[in-house]
């Protein structure tokens, strides 16, 4: 005698063994399976036939797992965007706070805010501008990695080779650091933009 609950339990175990382990996903697929079995039984199939049919329609665990992995990648990309936006806002807020509250000459404060303005403009400009880069594959990766290396390299040189030779006051140091960070932020934004728009040139787009 066919036991639907037992068959569904076995099927869930097979899916879990095939890599679909999230209970939420398994519950949703089970809900679908039960609806489909009900429908097939109403149209005249036996419960066992209906179950076997419904399982086949849902597809193999390996295929489903590969598709669900794409959804996980989308979630990770969204989290990355939120973290990047949060870090950018935190950087702007703390830098602005330091420039406003720290005792410094008016000219230094203006220079500091100019550096922040340049960071925003170059960061946004290169992030969105990178969408028009037509290179794909290895050239695209090289551009991203090369740009980031130049930005980080410049900041490292500044900190290790240039800064020790300069006799700055604290406020001058703050302003100098903000300017030194501009190329690193710009190159990082360029690399992020390249990564996010990867593959876009292969598809079609409409205005």
């Amino acid at each position, binding site marked *: 005698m066919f036991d639907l609950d037992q068959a569904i339990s076995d099927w869930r175990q097979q899916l879990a063994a095939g890599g679909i382990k999230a209970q*939420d*996903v398994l*519950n*949703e*697929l089970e*809900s*679908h399976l*039960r*609806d*489909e079995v009900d429908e097939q039984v109403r149209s005249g199939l036996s419960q066992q036939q209906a179950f076997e049919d*419904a399982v086949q*329609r*849902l*597809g193999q665990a390996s*295929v*489903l797992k590969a*598709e*669900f992995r*794409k*959804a*996980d990648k*989308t*979630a990770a990309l*969204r989290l990355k965007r939120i973290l990047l936006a949060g870090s950018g806002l935190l950087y702007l807020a703390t830098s602005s706070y330091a420039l406003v509250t720290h005792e410094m000459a008016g000219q230094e404060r203006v220079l500091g805010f100019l550096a922040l303005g340049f960071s925003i403009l170059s960061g946004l400009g290169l992030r969105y501008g990178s969408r028009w880069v037509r290179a794909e594959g290895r050239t695209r990766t090289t551009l991203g990695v090369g740009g980031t290396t130049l930005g980080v390299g410049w900041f490292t040189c500044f900190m290790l080779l240039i800064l020790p030779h300069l006799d700055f006051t604290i406020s001058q140091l703050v302003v100098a650091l903000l300017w030194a960070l501009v190329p690193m932020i710009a190159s990082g934004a360029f690399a992020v933009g390249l990564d996010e728009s990867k593959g876009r040139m292969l598809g079609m787009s*409409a205005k």
Partner: protein
Amino acid sequence: MLSKELVAASAEPLILSLLSGGESYGYAIIQEIKARSKERIHWTDGMLYPVLHRMEAEGWIQSRWVEAENGRRRKYYSIKKDGQRALAQQREQWLTVHSVLAGLWKERYV
């Protein structure tokens, strides 16, 4: 029957359009599309769920579990504001393709 590629490309706008009319769950979405397309759009049942999960990760739709009268729990999806925006963009793109094709075919076949 539509080609695999076209079915895949049209899945998001179809789901968004359907959900813009009210919340629904996976099985009902499949049945609705099947009926509206007179069975010409055939989705592999299991493939809908990864698409729904991806759209949820994009922030276009949201989900909640609801218990039906018969005690069965179903995951209902509803469209979010970002989903409405995505739908408006996709609608414009599909209409562009449609109007270009319609124009070309009119010139050729009329």
